[in-house]
């Protein structure tokens, strides 16, 4: 918990490519930014979905990968010293009588910002929920999509499901503390580091953990406490695995999340904006990148960059009403170059 409130010119919700570049455009105008993202690293879809795939339509960059684009953006904005608050979900947005915004995250971090920039993509990344009846009733008590504290799993009987790195990493890590770990996956092939797969098979061979080829179909228990997980095996049998916790790892999906509750005009889960400044129906709140909609909108990184540039002009007028805004090129302005620490 933080007891002090962080003061900032702009609070950016979402550290995807568009949120990152907004730091640059705001920074050129001497506006200070803090960014919040639920992911534990910047990059949004580029890092989560396609870090190694090529992108061909960034102007002036014939080819880059999701990862290299994000690394370069981070370098480009470094002179403006943006501050990141990762692994946190922006949950609340409330306007003060003086027009500034109180913003709160689920980790209790509090900001007081002059403007708020929603660069939230298709919403916050959240774990995929397996289509198991009444799974919601167990979530938070005995079904977990992430492990916050390994100790909480000590002495427990665990069923882990999934075929990616998270499922395997947690199987290996929790095998040391849990009473019993059973890994359930439909195939004997994994989308994970070969080394982890090898270690997992070793633990199965020496009897430390169990591996079941099949799919989890139902949960049994009462009051949110699990007693067993029902598994349909590939051979067609029904197994009932006694369990205290079920840990499904099926990757991440994007959900709009708390943004829906902030009183902004929405159009099919996108925030409606004007195309002059990409401001929402609420003055002082902007929306840029995949999250916004307007006539002709294209969900491209390129468009998000443009939107950030225009947004910054209006944000400046809100934050520094007494100052004149000079249009300058980074090529010729020594003032801008000083900010970029190249001069």
């Amino acid at each position, binding site marked *: 918990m933080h007891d002090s409130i962080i003061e900032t010119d702009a609070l950016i919700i979402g550290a995807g490519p568009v949120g990152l570049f907004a730091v640059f455009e705001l920074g050129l105008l001497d506006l200070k930014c803090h960014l919040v993202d639920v992911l534990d690293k910047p990059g949004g879809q580029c890092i989560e*979905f*396609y870090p190694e*795939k090529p992108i061909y339509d960034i102007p002036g960059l014939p080819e880059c990968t999701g990862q290299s684009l994000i690394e370069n953006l981070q370098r480009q904005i470094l002179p403006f010293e943006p501050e990141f608050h990762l692994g946190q979900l922006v949950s609340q947005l409330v306007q003060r009588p003086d027009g500034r915004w109180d913003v709160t995250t689920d980790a209790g971090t509090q900001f007081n910002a002059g403007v708020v920039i929603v660069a939230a993509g298709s919403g916050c990344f959240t774990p*995929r*929920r*397996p*289509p198991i009846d009444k799974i919601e009733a167990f979530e938070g008590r005995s079904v977990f999509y992430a492990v916050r504290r390994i100790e909480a799993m000590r002495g427990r009987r665990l069923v882990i499901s*999934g*075929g*990616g790195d998270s499922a395997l990493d947690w199987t290996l890590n929790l095998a040391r503390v849990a009473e019993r770990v059973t890994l359930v*996956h*439909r*195939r004997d*092939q994994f*989308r994970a580091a070969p080394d982890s797969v090898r270690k997992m098979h070793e633990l199965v061979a020496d009897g430390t953990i169990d591996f079941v080829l099949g*799919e989890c179909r139902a949960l049994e228990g009462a009051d949110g406490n699990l007693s067993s997980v029902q598994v349909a095996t590939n051979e067609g049998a029904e197994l009932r695995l006694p369990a205290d916790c079920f840990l499904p790892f*099926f*990757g991440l*999906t*994007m959900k709009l999340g708390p943004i829906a509750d902030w009183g902004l005009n929405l159009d099919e889960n996108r925030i409606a904006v004007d195309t002059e400044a990409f401001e929402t129906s609420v003055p002082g709140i902007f929306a840029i990148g995949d999250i916004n909609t307007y006539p002709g909108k294209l969900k491209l990184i390129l468009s998000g960059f443009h939107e950030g540039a225009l947004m910054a002009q209006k944000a400046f007028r809100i934050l520094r009403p007494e100052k004149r805004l000079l249009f300058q090129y980074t090529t010729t302005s020594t003032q801008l170059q000083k900010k970029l620490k190249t001069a």
Partner: protein
Amino acid sequence: MKILVTDFDHVVHEVTAEADWPIMEAIRSAGLPIKAECGGCCLCATCHVYVDDAWVGKIQAMDDEEEMMLGEAPQVRPSSRLSCQMRMAPELDGLVLSLAPTY
């Protein structure tokens, strides 16, 4: 060319598809509820479909990448495919499939 898609309410839709289009794109542009979150990059398994048994043999075989990703979809059957990895072709005109569960 046409494909016939059964949705989750068992309603059959006739969908237009151009040659070489990913089948997922054809389904999506017809406005049917297919998630296809990763946009066809074989990264999400949310474009899962069941191909009608009569058509299974006529479609290009799966590559490793699709097979691996399909492992992440629920209730996979022998007729399961990721629709973003199948491309429309003249011999698939009239293809019959249904939308399948996803995580």
